[in-house]
């Protein structure tokens, strides 16, 4: 039996279908999860997809963090279940305090949509093991609230522990501190990033490359080996 990977749909989620497709292309079984359900349908890992959950009212990700599905996701993530938060999913993970810091409005106040170069700084997380450390990848980026902030002490701690998982290359698109594009928790099972690997899994669309597929093959390999 192959690994089951859940993708949560909140009201306002946009990228759930792309995430489900990426899971399938990687060879895992995609499972749709609904924000009102506490039950995770026995999935082995969860992807929180991009979009504007609950309209991003209050703060991006703030309301979804208290949805029934997230109660279970937070519990399970704390006991080691792999969780990947992409864009709005990353915002939800910081609001849920599964990842430190917070996401704020881009420093230039514009919605941004571009192909973004990233460096994989940590290839030992559940979601990055198929990359080599230092590999440069290009994936789409699209967001309004992508500015990662944390206080100096937290930033130093993230750097010292190798928990800055991805850094922006060439251009910092949103004013994120220390060019941080994504981070991981100390255990490496929870990963969040602003750019969208699920949009770069087929040559026909997105960047025209498949640089994002590694996220989904990484987790599949991890789950099948477990």
């Amino acid at each position, binding site marked *: 039996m192959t690994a089951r990977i859940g993708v949560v749909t909140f009201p306002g989620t946009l990228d759930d279908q792309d995430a489900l497709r990426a899971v399938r292309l990687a060879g895992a079984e995609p499972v749709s999860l609904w924000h009102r359900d506490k039950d995770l349908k026995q999935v082995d890992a969860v992807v929180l997809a991009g979009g504007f959950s609950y309209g991003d009212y*209050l703060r991006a990700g703030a309301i979804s963090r*208290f949805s029934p599905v997230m109660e279970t996701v937070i519990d399970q993530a704390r006991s080691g279940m792999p969780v990947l938060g992409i864009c709005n999913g990353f915002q939800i993970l*910081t609001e849920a305090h599964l990842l430190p*810091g917070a996401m*704020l409005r*881009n420093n230039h106040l514009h919605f941004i949509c571009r192909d973004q170069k990233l460096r994989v700084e940590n290839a030992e997380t559940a979601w990055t093991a198929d990359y080599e450390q230092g590999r440069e990848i290009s994936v789409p980026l699209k967001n309004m609230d992508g*500015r990662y*902030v944390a206080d100096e002490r937290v930033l130093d701690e993230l750097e010292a522990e190798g928990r800055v998982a991805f850094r922006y290359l060439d251009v910092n698109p949103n004013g994120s501190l220390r060019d941080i594009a994504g981070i991981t928790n100390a255990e490496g099972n929870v990963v969040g990033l602003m750019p969208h690997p699920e949009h770069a899994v087929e040559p026909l669309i997105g960047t025209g490359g498949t640089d994002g597929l590694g996220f989904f093959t990484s987790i599949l390999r991890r789950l099948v080996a477990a």
Partner: protein
Amino acid sequence: MARVVVDVMLKPEILDPQGQAVQRALPRLGFEGIADVRQGKRFELEVDGPVDDAALARIHEMAETFLANTVIEDFVVKVES
């Protein structure tokens, strides 16, 4: 019914580009002499029943867990009437 106001502001050390955009627009509109602007959020809560210590404690908890993200924001709770 009593009103309780929760004011939420970005912490002073956090860059506020929205406030800056407002500040930069002021001279264009003829409003001079404003050195800095920071933009916050104000929540007006109409409370059922008395605003006693227990109610205020609940509102404080609400502000801390939900209305404000204390990683980046400070908040103040005030009883209005």
